[in-house]
Protein backbone atom coordinates (compact mmCIF):
# COMPACT_ATOMS: atom_id res chain seq x y z
CA UNK A 1 0.00 0.00 0.00
CA UNK A 2 1.13 3.56 -0.65
CA UNK A 3 1.01 6.14 2.14
CA UNK A 4 1.73 9.86 2.24
CA UNK A 5 4.11 10.19 5.20
CA UNK A 6 4.71 13.65 6.67
CA UNK A 7 7.35 14.55 9.26
CA UNK A 8 7.59 17.67 11.40
CA UNK A 9 10.03 19.74 13.45
CA UNK A 10 13.41 18.03 14.00
CA UNK A 11 12.12 14.71 12.69
CA UNK A 12 12.74 16.30 9.28
CA UNK A 13 16.48 16.60 9.93
CA UNK A 14 18.29 14.16 7.59
CA UNK A 15 14.93 12.69 6.58
CA UNK A 16 12.21 14.50 4.63
CA UNK A 17 9.16 16.73 4.96
CA UNK A 18 6.76 14.60 2.99
CA UNK A 19 7.15 11.41 0.97
CA UNK A 20 5.00 8.79 -0.77
CA UNK A 21 6.14 5.45 0.68
CA UNK A 22 5.18 1.82 0.03
CA UNK A 23 4.55 -0.60 2.87
CA UNK A 24 3.09 -4.12 3.01
CA UNK A 25 -0.63 -4.11 3.83
CA UNK A 26 -1.18 -4.35 7.58
CA UNK A 27 1.99 -2.46 8.56
CA UNK A 28 1.37 -0.62 11.84
CA UNK A 29 2.26 2.97 12.66
CA UNK A 30 4.85 1.68 15.12
CA UNK A 31 6.55 -0.35 12.40
CA UNK A 32 6.60 2.68 10.12
CA UNK A 33 8.16 4.84 12.84
CA UNK A 34 10.83 2.16 13.32
CA UNK A 35 11.48 1.98 9.58
CA UNK A 36 12.14 5.72 9.63
CA UNK A 37 14.63 5.25 12.49
CA UNK A 38 12.69 7.65 14.71
CA UNK A 39 13.01 6.78 18.43
CA UNK A 40 9.54 5.75 19.63
CA UNK A 41 9.97 7.62 22.91
CA UNK A 42 10.39 10.90 21.02
CA UNK A 43 7.09 10.60 19.13
CA UNK A 44 4.57 12.99 20.66
CA UNK A 45 1.60 12.96 18.31
CA UNK A 46 0.57 10.85 15.32
CA UNK A 47 -2.32 11.73 13.04
CA UNK A 48 -3.87 9.49 10.45
CA UNK A 49 -5.88 11.53 7.94
CA UNK A 50 -5.86 14.47 10.37
CA UNK A 51 -7.24 12.40 13.26
CA UNK A 52 -5.30 11.44 16.38
CA UNK A 53 -4.16 7.82 16.18
CA UNK A 54 -2.26 5.18 18.14
CA UNK A 55 0.91 3.21 17.42
CA UNK A 56 -0.93 -0.10 16.98
CA UNK A 57 -3.18 1.19 14.19
CA UNK A 58 -2.60 -0.02 10.62
CA UNK A 59 -3.07 2.64 7.92
CA UNK A 60 -4.82 1.79 4.64
CA UNK A 61 -3.91 2.49 1.01
CA UNK A 62 -3.77 6.22 0.28
CA UNK A 63 -3.78 7.31 3.93
CA UNK A 64 -1.92 10.34 5.14
CA UNK A 65 0.28 9.72 8.19
CA UNK A 66 1.73 12.70 10.11
CA UNK A 67 4.39 12.12 12.77
CA UNK A 68 5.32 14.83 15.27
CA UNK A 69 7.83 14.90 18.11
CA UNK A 70 6.60 16.11 21.51
CA UNK A 71 5.89 19.79 20.91
CA UNK A 72 3.78 22.55 22.38
CA UNK A 73 3.19 26.26 22.33
CA UNK A 74 0.28 28.63 22.64
Amino acid at each position, binding site marked *: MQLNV*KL*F*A*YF*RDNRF*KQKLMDFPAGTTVEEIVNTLDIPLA*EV*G*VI*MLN*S*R*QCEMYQAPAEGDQL*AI*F*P*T*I*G*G*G
Partner: protein
Amino acid sequence: MSDLSCKIESVPERWMGLGGRGLTSTIIAEEVAPTCHPLGQHNKLVFAPGLLSGTPAANSGRLSCGAKSPLTGTIKEANAGGTSAQMLAKIGVKALIIEGKPTDDGKWYNLHINADSVRLQEETELIGKGNFAVVQAINNRLGDKTGVITIGPAGEMRMTSANISIKDPDSHLRSHGRGGLGAVMGSKRIKFISVEPTEQKMAIANPQAFKEANRTFAKALADNPISKALGQYGTNVLVNIINESGGLPTKNFTLGQFEGHEAISGETMHDTIVARGGKPKHNCHPGCVINCSQIYADANGQYKTSGFEYETIWALGADCCIDNLDYVAEADSLMDDIGIDSIETPVAFGVAMEAGVLKFGDGAELCRILKEDIGKGTALGRIIGNGAGSVGKAYGVTRVPVVKNQAIPAYDPRAIKGIGITYATSTQGADHTMGYTIATNILGVGGKVDPLSKEGQVELSRNLQIATAAIDSTGMCLFIAFAALDDATCLPALIDMINARFGIHLTANDVTNLGMSILKTEHAFNLAAGFTNKDDRLPEFFSEEAVAPHNVVWDISDEAIDSFWNF
Protein backbone atom coordinates in the same frame (compact mmCIF):
# COMPACT_ATOMS: atom_id res chain seq x y z
CA MET B 1 -5.50 60.66 38.66
CA SER B 2 -8.45 62.90 39.52
CA ASP B 3 -6.35 64.92 41.99
CA LEU B 4 -2.99 63.97 40.44
CA SER B 5 -1.67 62.49 43.67
CA CYS B 6 0.27 59.33 44.59
CA LYS B 7 -0.03 57.38 47.81
CA ILE B 8 1.92 54.43 49.18
CA GLU B 9 -0.37 52.24 51.27
CA SER B 10 0.28 49.12 53.33
CA VAL B 11 -1.23 45.90 52.00
CA PRO B 12 -4.50 44.89 53.66
CA GLU B 13 -4.23 41.57 55.50
CA ARG B 14 -6.79 39.92 53.19
CA TRP B 15 -4.65 40.59 50.11
CA MET B 16 -1.36 39.38 51.62
CA GLY B 17 -1.59 35.85 50.20
CA LEU B 18 -2.46 37.03 46.71
CA GLY B 19 -0.36 38.01 43.72
CA GLY B 20 -0.63 38.41 39.96
CA ARG B 21 -4.08 37.70 38.55
CA GLY B 22 -5.47 36.67 41.94
CA LEU B 23 -4.63 40.13 43.24
CA THR B 24 -5.62 42.21 40.21
CA SER B 25 -8.99 40.47 39.94
CA THR B 26 -9.62 40.74 43.70
CA ILE B 27 -8.87 44.47 43.66
CA ILE B 28 -11.03 45.10 40.59
CA ALA B 29 -13.89 43.07 42.11
CA GLU B 30 -13.65 44.95 45.42
CA GLU B 31 -13.07 48.47 44.15
CA VAL B 32 -14.56 48.84 40.67
CA ALA B 33 -18.31 49.17 40.10
CA PRO B 34 -19.07 46.37 37.59
CA THR B 35 -21.42 48.63 35.62
CA CYS B 36 -18.96 51.51 35.25
CA HIS B 37 -17.76 52.76 31.88
CA PRO B 38 -14.39 51.10 31.31
CA LEU B 39 -12.87 54.37 30.08
CA GLY B 40 -14.45 56.52 32.77
CA GLN B 41 -13.23 57.73 36.14
CA HIS B 42 -14.59 54.75 38.07
CA ASN B 43 -12.50 52.07 36.37
CA LYS B 44 -9.10 51.21 37.86
CA LEU B 45 -5.97 49.89 36.18
CA VAL B 46 -4.05 47.51 38.42
CA PHE B 47 -0.59 46.05 37.93
CA ALA B 48 0.65 43.23 40.16
CA PRO B 49 3.76 41.05 40.04
CA GLY B 50 3.19 37.41 40.92
CA LEU B 51 3.82 35.73 44.27
CA LEU B 52 7.27 34.55 43.15
CA SER B 53 8.23 37.48 40.89
CA GLY B 54 11.53 39.07 41.87
CA THR B 55 12.86 35.89 43.48
CA PRO B 56 15.40 33.66 41.71
CA ALA B 57 12.54 31.25 40.81
CA ALA B 58 12.87 30.20 37.17
CA ASN B 59 10.30 31.68 34.75
CA SER B 60 8.68 33.90 37.38
CA GLY B 61 8.81 37.24 35.58
CA ARG B 62 5.20 37.71 34.52
CA LEU B 63 3.38 40.93 35.35
CA SER B 64 -0.41 40.89 35.64
CA CYS B 65 -2.50 43.84 34.58
CA GLY B 66 -6.21 44.07 35.30
CA ALA B 67 -9.20 46.39 34.82
CA LYS B 68 -12.73 46.28 33.50
CA SER B 69 -12.14 45.71 29.79
CA PRO B 70 -13.38 48.29 27.27
CA LEU B 71 -13.40 45.57 24.60
CA THR B 72 -15.45 42.95 26.43
CA GLY B 73 -17.10 44.80 29.32
CA THR B 74 -15.92 41.95 31.56
CA ILE B 75 -13.21 41.81 34.15
CA LYS B 76 -9.82 41.44 32.49
CA GLU B 77 -6.38 40.20 33.37
CA ALA B 78 -3.58 40.11 30.82
CA ASN B 79 -0.08 39.11 31.80
CA ALA B 80 3.23 39.71 30.11
CA GLY B 81 6.95 39.04 30.48
CA GLY B 82 9.59 41.74 30.26
CA THR B 83 11.62 43.15 33.13
CA SER B 84 9.08 45.22 35.07
CA ALA B 85 7.45 42.47 37.18
CA GLN B 86 10.73 41.50 38.79
CA MET B 87 11.78 45.12 39.27
CA LEU B 88 8.47 46.14 40.88
CA ALA B 89 8.57 43.11 43.18
CA LYS B 90 12.14 43.88 44.30
CA ILE B 91 11.15 47.46 45.07
CA GLY B 92 8.43 46.02 47.30
CA VAL B 93 5.41 46.86 45.13
CA LYS B 94 2.62 44.37 45.72
CA ALA B 95 0.27 46.22 43.38
CA LEU B 96 0.10 49.52 41.54
CA ILE B 97 -3.45 50.90 41.34
CA ILE B 98 -4.21 53.75 38.95
CA GLU B 99 -7.60 55.29 39.61
CA GLY B 100 -9.69 58.34 38.77
CA LYS B 101 -9.19 60.50 35.70
CA PRO B 102 -7.58 63.93 35.23
CA THR B 103 -10.03 66.78 34.81
CA ASP B 104 -7.77 68.53 32.30
CA ASP B 105 -8.11 66.45 29.15
CA GLY B 106 -5.29 68.27 27.42
CA LYS B 107 -2.44 66.93 29.51
CA TRP B 108 -0.52 63.66 29.62
CA TYR B 109 1.55 62.20 32.44
CA ASN B 110 4.19 59.63 33.26
CA LEU B 111 4.70 57.73 36.49
CA HIS B 112 8.17 57.06 37.86
CA ILE B 113 8.64 54.45 40.55
CA ASN B 114 11.71 53.77 42.64
CA ALA B 115 12.41 52.12 45.98
CA ASP B 116 11.41 55.24 47.92
CA SER B 117 8.68 56.97 45.98
CA VAL B 118 6.15 57.21 43.20
CA ARG B 119 6.17 60.41 41.16
CA LEU B 120 3.57 61.62 38.71
CA GLN B 121 4.96 64.07 36.16
CA GLU B 122 3.54 65.83 33.15
CA GLU B 123 4.75 64.27 29.88
CA THR B 124 5.01 66.29 26.68
CA GLU B 125 7.92 64.93 24.66
CA LEU B 126 6.65 61.42 23.93
CA ILE B 127 2.96 61.97 23.25
CA GLY B 128 1.97 60.53 19.88
CA LYS B 129 5.14 58.46 19.72
CA GLY B 130 5.31 54.73 19.03
CA ASN B 131 6.44 52.29 21.69
CA PHE B 132 9.92 51.78 20.26
CA ALA B 133 10.60 55.53 20.39
CA VAL B 134 9.28 55.65 23.96
CA VAL B 135 11.61 52.87 25.11
CA GLN B 136 14.58 54.48 23.37
CA ALA B 137 13.83 57.89 24.86
CA ILE B 138 13.48 56.50 28.39
CA ASN B 139 16.70 54.52 28.00
CA ASN B 140 18.38 57.82 27.07
CA ARG B 141 16.65 59.79 29.81
CA LEU B 142 16.95 57.34 32.72
CA GLY B 143 19.38 54.60 31.68
CA ASP B 144 18.86 51.37 29.80
CA LYS B 145 18.24 49.29 32.92
CA THR B 146 15.02 51.21 33.59
CA GLY B 147 11.83 49.18 33.40
CA VAL B 148 9.23 50.55 30.97
CA ILE B 149 5.47 50.02 30.78
CA THR B 150 4.07 52.02 27.87
CA ILE B 151 1.18 52.64 25.49
CA GLY B 152 1.47 53.55 21.81
CA PRO B 153 -0.79 55.81 19.72
CA ALA B 154 -3.59 53.19 19.83
CA GLY B 155 -3.74 53.44 23.63
CA GLU B 156 -3.64 57.23 23.49
CA MET B 157 -6.60 57.12 21.08
CA ARG B 158 -8.37 54.66 23.42
CA MET B 159 -8.88 52.02 20.74
CA THR B 160 -10.39 48.97 22.39
CA SER B 161 -7.71 46.65 21.10
CA ALA B 162 -4.87 48.80 22.39
CA ASN B 163 -2.34 46.89 24.46
CA ILE B 164 0.22 47.81 27.11
CA SER B 165 3.84 47.09 26.24
CA ILE B 166 6.61 46.04 28.59
CA LYS B 167 10.29 46.42 27.84
CA ASP B 168 12.23 43.14 27.70
CA PRO B 169 15.92 42.63 28.63
CA ASP B 170 17.06 43.77 25.16
CA SER B 171 14.76 46.81 24.97
CA HIS B 172 12.32 45.00 22.69
CA LEU B 173 8.67 44.62 23.67
CA ARG B 174 6.31 42.15 25.31
CA SER B 175 2.61 42.94 25.66
CA HIS B 176 -0.36 42.81 27.98
CA GLY B 177 -2.13 42.02 24.76
CA ARG B 178 -5.76 41.31 25.13
CA GLY B 179 -8.87 43.23 26.08
CA GLY B 180 -7.87 46.82 25.40
CA LEU B 181 -6.04 47.58 28.64
CA GLY B 182 -3.97 50.14 26.72
CA ALA B 183 -7.15 52.15 26.21
CA VAL B 184 -7.72 52.15 29.97
CA MET B 185 -4.18 53.45 30.52
CA GLY B 186 -4.85 56.06 27.83
CA SER B 187 -8.08 57.07 29.56
CA LYS B 188 -6.02 57.74 32.71
CA ARG B 189 -3.75 59.94 30.54
CA ILE B 190 -0.61 57.99 31.45
CA LYS B 191 1.77 57.50 28.53
CA PHE B 192 4.30 55.38 30.36
CA ILE B 193 5.48 54.09 33.71
CA SER B 194 9.22 53.91 34.38
CA VAL B 195 10.67 51.63 37.06
CA GLU B 196 14.07 52.36 38.54
CA PRO B 197 16.38 49.39 39.14
CA THR B 198 17.23 48.53 42.74
CA GLU B 199 19.90 46.46 44.45
CA GLN B 200 17.30 45.25 46.97
CA LYS B 201 16.73 41.51 47.13
CA MET B 202 13.50 39.75 47.97
CA ALA B 203 13.10 38.42 51.50
CA ILE B 204 12.84 34.63 51.47
CA ALA B 205 11.67 32.94 54.67
CA ASN B 206 13.53 29.69 54.11
CA PRO B 207 16.36 30.29 51.62
CA GLN B 208 17.78 26.75 51.62
CA ALA B 209 14.41 25.09 50.98
CA PHE B 210 13.72 27.70 48.29
CA LYS B 211 17.00 26.98 46.54
CA GLU B 212 16.42 23.25 46.53
CA ALA B 213 12.85 23.57 45.26
CA ASN B 214 13.94 25.98 42.54
CA ARG B 215 16.65 23.57 41.40
CA THR B 216 14.08 20.75 41.04
CA PHE B 217 11.60 23.10 39.35
CA ALA B 218 14.11 24.52 36.85
CA LYS B 219 15.30 21.02 36.00
CA ALA B 220 11.74 19.83 35.36
CA LEU B 221 11.25 22.78 32.99
CA ALA B 222 14.58 22.45 31.21
CA ASP B 223 14.30 18.68 30.74
CA ASN B 224 10.78 18.80 29.35
CA PRO B 225 10.77 18.01 25.61
CA ILE B 226 8.17 20.72 24.94
CA SER B 227 10.43 23.33 26.53
CA LYS B 228 13.21 22.21 24.22
CA ALA B 229 11.00 22.43 21.12
CA LEU B 230 9.81 25.88 22.24
CA GLY B 231 13.43 27.00 22.44
CA GLN B 232 14.14 25.78 18.91
CA TYR B 233 10.98 26.69 17.00
CA GLY B 234 9.13 29.09 19.29
CA THR B 235 5.39 28.82 19.79
CA ASN B 236 5.05 28.93 16.01
CA VAL B 237 5.90 25.20 15.98
CA LEU B 238 2.11 24.90 16.26
CA VAL B 239 1.21 26.06 12.72
CA ASN B 240 1.83 22.67 11.13
CA ILE B 241 0.29 20.50 13.85
CA ILE B 242 -2.86 22.60 14.17
CA ASN B 243 -3.13 22.71 10.39
CA GLU B 244 -2.76 18.94 10.22
CA SER B 245 -5.50 18.55 12.82
CA GLY B 246 -7.89 20.56 10.67
CA GLY B 247 -8.28 23.21 13.38
CA LEU B 248 -6.29 26.09 11.84
CA PRO B 249 -8.89 28.80 11.20
CA THR B 250 -8.29 30.05 7.68
CA LYS B 251 -9.73 32.85 5.52
CA ASN B 252 -11.83 34.38 8.29
CA PHE B 253 -12.78 31.00 9.78
CA THR B 254 -14.17 29.49 6.58
CA LEU B 255 -11.61 26.64 6.35
CA GLY B 256 -9.69 24.50 8.84
CA GLN B 257 -6.47 24.20 6.87
CA PHE B 258 -4.26 26.76 5.11
CA GLU B 259 -2.56 25.91 1.80
CA GLY B 260 0.35 28.18 2.64
CA HIS B 261 1.00 26.67 6.07
CA GLU B 262 4.59 25.57 5.32
CA ALA B 263 5.61 29.13 4.40
CA ILE B 264 4.55 30.47 7.80
CA SER B 265 5.45 27.42 9.92
CA GLY B 266 7.83 27.24 12.88
CA GLU B 267 10.13 25.03 10.85
CA THR B 268 10.40 27.64 8.05
CA MET B 269 10.74 30.44 10.59
CA HIS B 270 13.60 28.62 12.36
CA ASP B 271 15.48 28.02 9.10
CA THR B 272 14.92 31.62 7.97
CA ILE B 273 16.16 33.03 11.28
CA VAL B 274 19.29 30.87 11.21
CA ALA B 275 20.01 31.66 7.54
CA ARG B 276 19.68 35.42 8.17
CA GLY B 277 21.73 35.52 11.36
CA GLY B 278 18.85 36.17 13.77
CA LYS B 279 18.42 34.29 17.04
CA PRO B 280 16.04 31.33 17.27
CA LYS B 281 16.21 31.49 21.11
CA HIS B 282 15.60 34.53 23.28
CA ASN B 283 14.26 35.14 26.78
CA CYS B 284 11.53 37.66 27.47
CA HIS B 285 12.55 38.00 31.11
CA PRO B 286 15.65 37.16 33.18
CA GLY B 287 15.51 33.66 34.65
CA CYS B 288 13.54 32.04 31.83
CA VAL B 289 14.90 28.59 31.03
CA ILE B 290 12.55 27.94 28.07
CA ASN B 291 13.47 30.83 25.72
CA CYS B 292 10.46 30.63 23.39
CA SER B 293 11.08 34.13 22.06
CA GLN B 294 13.40 34.84 19.15
CA ILE B 295 14.96 37.61 17.09
CA TYR B 296 13.60 37.55 13.53
CA ALA B 297 15.83 39.31 11.01
CA ASP B 298 14.80 40.72 7.63
CA ALA B 299 16.32 39.69 4.28
CA ASN B 300 19.27 42.02 4.96
CA GLY B 301 19.99 40.42 8.31
CA GLN B 302 18.67 43.44 10.24
CA TYR B 303 16.46 43.12 13.34
CA LYS B 304 12.79 43.06 12.37
CA THR B 305 10.81 41.70 15.29
CA SER B 306 10.94 39.50 18.37
CA GLY B 307 8.47 37.60 20.48
CA PHE B 308 7.05 36.44 17.18
CA GLU B 309 4.17 34.28 18.38
CA TYR B 310 2.09 31.51 16.85
CA GLU B 311 -1.22 33.32 17.36
CA THR B 312 0.03 36.46 15.60
CA ILE B 313 1.49 34.45 12.74
CA TRP B 314 -1.65 32.33 12.46
CA ALA B 315 -3.93 35.38 12.38
CA LEU B 316 -1.97 37.25 9.73
CA GLY B 317 -0.94 34.08 7.91
CA ALA B 318 -3.85 31.65 7.80
CA ASP B 319 -6.77 33.87 8.84
CA CYS B 320 -5.77 36.70 6.48
CA CYS B 321 -4.12 34.27 4.00
CA ILE B 322 -0.75 36.07 3.94
CA ASP B 323 1.69 33.26 3.14
CA ASN B 324 4.81 35.37 3.56
CA LEU B 325 6.65 35.57 6.89
CA ASP B 326 8.31 38.89 6.04
CA TYR B 327 4.97 40.67 5.67
CA VAL B 328 3.80 38.96 8.85
CA ALA B 329 6.96 40.14 10.67
CA GLU B 330 6.53 43.69 9.32
CA ALA B 331 2.92 43.75 10.56
CA ASP B 332 4.00 42.33 13.94
CA SER B 333 6.57 45.08 14.34
CA LEU B 334 4.05 47.77 13.34
CA MET B 335 1.49 46.43 15.84
CA ASP B 336 4.12 46.45 18.59
CA ASP B 337 4.97 50.06 17.79
CA ILE B 338 1.37 51.28 17.49
CA GLY B 339 0.54 49.30 20.63
CA ILE B 340 -2.29 47.12 19.45
CA ASP B 341 -3.20 43.51 20.18
CA SER B 342 -1.69 41.19 17.61
CA ILE B 343 -4.54 38.69 17.89
CA GLU B 344 -7.52 41.08 17.89
CA THR B 345 -6.15 43.26 15.08
CA PRO B 346 -5.41 40.64 12.42
CA VAL B 347 -8.68 38.84 13.19
CA ALA B 348 -10.36 42.23 12.64
CA PHE B 349 -8.48 42.47 9.33
CA GLY B 350 -9.80 39.01 8.42
CA VAL B 351 -13.36 40.32 8.88
CA ALA B 352 -12.42 43.46 6.91
CA MET B 353 -11.11 41.25 4.10
CA GLU B 354 -14.40 39.38 4.02
CA ALA B 355 -16.14 42.77 3.81
CA GLY B 356 -13.99 43.69 0.81
CA VAL B 357 -12.04 46.50 2.50
CA LEU B 358 -8.87 44.80 1.26
CA LYS B 359 -8.13 41.47 -0.40
CA PHE B 360 -7.30 38.26 1.42
CA GLY B 361 -3.56 37.73 1.20
CA ASP B 362 -2.68 41.40 0.63
CA GLY B 363 0.15 41.83 3.14
CA ALA B 364 1.35 45.12 1.68
CA GLU B 365 -2.08 46.74 1.98
CA LEU B 366 -2.54 45.40 5.52
CA CYS B 367 0.76 46.98 6.56
CA ARG B 368 -0.22 50.25 4.87
CA ILE B 369 -3.54 50.37 6.73
CA LEU B 370 -1.76 49.61 10.00
CA LYS B 371 0.63 52.52 9.48
CA GLU B 372 -1.55 55.10 7.81
CA ASP B 373 -4.99 54.38 9.22
CA ILE B 374 -4.72 52.65 12.61
CA GLY B 375 -1.47 54.39 13.55
CA LYS B 376 -2.90 57.79 12.63
CA GLY B 377 -6.44 57.20 13.85
CA THR B 378 -8.41 57.71 10.63
CA ALA B 379 -12.06 56.61 10.64
CA LEU B 380 -11.15 53.26 9.03
CA GLY B 381 -8.23 52.89 11.45
CA ARG B 382 -10.52 53.36 14.42
CA ILE B 383 -13.05 50.85 13.07
CA ILE B 384 -10.36 48.19 12.73
CA GLY B 385 -8.54 49.31 15.88
CA ASN B 386 -11.67 48.68 17.90
CA GLY B 387 -11.51 45.00 17.03
CA ALA B 388 -13.18 42.27 15.02
CA GLY B 389 -16.65 42.97 16.45
CA SER B 390 -16.37 46.63 15.48
CA VAL B 391 -15.46 45.76 11.86
CA GLY B 392 -18.33 43.27 11.68
CA LYS B 393 -20.81 45.94 12.80
CA ALA B 394 -19.42 48.67 10.57
CA TYR B 395 -19.58 46.50 7.43
CA GLY B 396 -22.57 44.25 8.17
CA VAL B 397 -20.56 41.02 8.28
CA THR B 398 -22.18 38.09 10.12
CA ARG B 399 -19.19 35.76 10.24
CA VAL B 400 -17.50 37.56 13.12
CA PRO B 401 -15.38 35.26 15.31
CA VAL B 402 -15.72 36.80 18.78
CA VAL B 403 -17.01 35.81 22.20
CA LYS B 404 -18.00 38.70 24.45
CA ASN B 405 -16.68 40.88 21.63
CA GLN B 406 -13.11 39.52 21.91
CA ALA B 407 -11.58 37.84 18.86
CA ILE B 408 -11.32 34.06 18.84
CA PRO B 409 -7.69 33.01 18.50
CA ALA B 410 -5.84 30.35 16.54
CA TYR B 411 -7.80 27.15 17.14
CA ASP B 412 -11.13 26.37 15.49
CA PRO B 413 -13.66 25.33 18.14
CA ARG B 414 -15.56 23.12 15.67
CA ALA B 415 -12.54 20.86 15.13
CA ILE B 416 -11.03 21.24 18.63
CA LYS B 417 -14.06 21.26 20.87
CA GLY B 418 -12.41 21.65 24.26
CA ILE B 419 -11.11 25.09 23.35
CA GLY B 420 -14.67 26.09 22.38
CA ILE B 421 -15.71 25.54 25.98
CA THR B 422 -12.85 27.78 27.09
CA TYR B 423 -13.83 30.50 24.60
CA ALA B 424 -17.47 30.33 25.70
CA THR B 425 -16.98 30.24 29.47
CA SER B 426 -13.78 32.21 30.04
CA THR B 427 -14.38 35.17 32.34
CA GLN B 428 -12.55 37.37 29.84
CA GLY B 429 -14.03 36.69 26.40
CA ALA B 430 -12.46 34.32 23.87
CA ASP B 431 -8.95 33.56 25.09
CA HIS B 432 -7.03 30.33 24.52
CA THR B 433 -4.65 30.95 27.43
CA MET B 434 -7.47 30.83 29.98
CA GLY B 435 -7.79 27.04 29.67
CA TYR B 436 -5.47 25.66 27.03
CA THR B 437 -7.23 22.43 26.10
CA ILE B 438 -5.03 22.18 23.00
CA ALA B 439 -2.50 20.51 25.33
CA THR B 440 -4.77 17.51 25.86
CA ASN B 441 -6.93 17.71 22.71
CA ILE B 442 -4.01 17.87 20.28
CA LEU B 443 -0.59 17.71 21.90
CA GLY B 444 -1.08 14.66 24.12
CA VAL B 445 -0.07 16.57 27.25
CA GLY B 446 -1.94 15.81 30.48
CA GLY B 447 -3.62 12.79 28.86
CA LYS B 448 -5.70 12.65 25.69
CA VAL B 449 -9.22 13.85 24.93
CA ASP B 450 -10.38 13.41 21.31
CA PRO B 451 -10.72 16.94 19.89
CA LEU B 452 -13.69 15.98 17.69
CA SER B 453 -15.74 14.33 20.44
CA LYS B 454 -18.19 16.12 22.71
CA GLU B 455 -17.15 13.94 25.65
CA GLY B 456 -14.97 15.25 28.44
CA GLN B 457 -14.49 18.75 27.04
CA VAL B 458 -16.26 20.69 29.81
CA GLU B 459 -14.33 18.92 32.55
CA LEU B 460 -11.05 19.38 30.68
CA SER B 461 -11.61 23.10 30.20
CA ARG B 462 -12.75 23.54 33.82
CA ASN B 463 -9.69 21.81 35.27
CA LEU B 464 -7.35 23.80 33.07
CA GLN B 465 -9.09 27.13 33.76
CA ILE B 466 -8.80 26.52 37.50
CA ALA B 467 -5.12 25.57 37.25
CA THR B 468 -4.40 28.53 34.97
CA ALA B 469 -5.95 31.04 37.36
CA ALA B 470 -3.64 29.71 40.09
CA ILE B 471 -0.51 29.74 37.87
CA ASP B 472 -1.34 33.29 36.72
CA SER B 473 -1.13 34.33 40.38
CA THR B 474 2.40 33.07 40.93
CA GLY B 475 4.11 35.23 38.30
CA MET B 476 5.00 32.07 36.45
CA CYS B 477 4.90 31.84 32.68
CA LEU B 478 2.00 29.62 31.61
CA PHE B 479 4.43 27.41 29.69
CA ILE B 480 5.44 25.80 32.98
CA ALA B 481 2.10 23.99 32.64
CA PHE B 482 3.50 21.59 30.03
CA ALA B 483 6.02 20.30 32.58
CA ALA B 484 3.49 20.56 35.43
CA LEU B 485 0.96 18.38 33.59
CA ASP B 486 3.38 15.55 32.83
CA ASP B 487 6.32 15.71 35.26
CA ALA B 488 5.41 14.66 38.81
CA THR B 489 8.25 16.72 40.34
CA CYS B 490 7.24 20.08 38.82
CA LEU B 491 4.11 21.20 40.64
CA PRO B 492 5.22 20.07 44.13
CA ALA B 493 8.48 22.02 43.60
CA LEU B 494 6.48 25.13 42.64
CA ILE B 495 4.36 24.85 45.80
CA ASP B 496 7.52 24.25 47.87
CA MET B 497 8.96 27.47 46.47
CA ILE B 498 5.87 29.48 47.44
CA ASN B 499 5.98 27.95 50.91
CA ALA B 500 9.70 28.64 51.31
CA ARG B 501 9.27 32.21 50.05
CA PHE B 502 6.57 33.10 52.58
CA GLY B 503 7.15 30.55 55.38
CA ILE B 504 3.70 29.02 54.87
CA HIS B 505 2.32 25.52 54.31
CA LEU B 506 0.16 25.49 51.19
CA THR B 507 -0.93 22.14 49.77
CA ALA B 508 -1.92 21.25 46.21
CA ASN B 509 -5.56 21.52 47.35
CA ASP B 510 -4.99 25.08 48.54
CA VAL B 511 -3.65 25.96 45.10
CA THR B 512 -6.70 24.43 43.39
CA ASN B 513 -8.98 26.31 45.79
CA LEU B 514 -7.17 29.55 44.95
CA GLY B 515 -7.81 28.93 41.24
CA MET B 516 -11.51 28.23 41.87
CA SER B 517 -11.91 31.26 44.04
CA ILE B 518 -10.32 33.55 41.41
CA LEU B 519 -12.67 32.22 38.71
CA LYS B 520 -15.69 32.69 40.95
CA THR B 521 -14.64 36.22 41.87
CA GLU B 522 -14.26 37.12 38.19
CA HIS B 523 -17.52 35.42 37.23
CA ALA B 524 -19.42 37.28 39.96
CA PHE B 525 -18.04 40.59 38.64
CA ASN B 526 -19.28 39.76 35.14
CA LEU B 527 -22.74 38.76 36.38
CA ALA B 528 -22.95 42.04 38.30
CA ALA B 529 -21.89 43.86 35.12
CA GLY B 530 -24.96 42.40 33.38
CA PHE B 531 -23.63 39.26 31.71
CA THR B 532 -25.67 36.04 31.85
CA ASN B 533 -25.15 32.45 30.73
CA LYS B 534 -26.56 33.52 27.34
CA ASP B 535 -23.32 35.40 26.80
CA ASP B 536 -21.36 32.14 27.25
CA ARG B 537 -22.04 31.14 23.66
CA LEU B 538 -20.11 30.93 20.41
CA PRO B 539 -21.28 32.95 17.37
CA GLU B 540 -24.06 31.11 15.52
CA PHE B 541 -22.07 30.51 12.35
CA PHE B 542 -20.02 27.89 14.19
CA SER B 543 -23.19 25.81 14.64
CA GLU B 544 -24.34 26.28 11.06
CA GLU B 545 -21.26 26.23 8.83
CA ALA B 546 -19.33 22.95 8.73
CA VAL B 547 -15.58 23.42 8.52
CA ALA B 548 -13.28 21.33 6.29
CA PRO B 549 -11.53 18.91 6.37
CA HIS B 550 -13.62 17.18 9.05
CA ASN B 551 -16.83 18.92 8.02
CA VAL B 552 -17.88 19.46 11.60
CA VAL B 553 -19.94 22.11 13.35
CA TRP B 554 -19.97 23.34 16.95
CA ASP B 555 -22.41 20.95 18.58
CA ILE B 556 -21.93 21.13 22.35
CA SER B 557 -25.26 21.94 24.00
CA ASP B 558 -25.99 25.10 25.96
CA GLU B 559 -26.74 22.94 29.03
CA ALA B 560 -23.33 21.32 28.80
CA ILE B 561 -21.65 24.72 28.49
CA ASP B 562 -23.55 26.03 31.51
CA SER B 563 -22.47 23.01 33.56
CA PHE B 564 -18.95 24.46 33.42
CA TRP B 565 -19.82 26.56 36.48
CA ASN B 566 -20.83 23.56 38.61
CA PHE B 567 -17.97 23.70 41.08
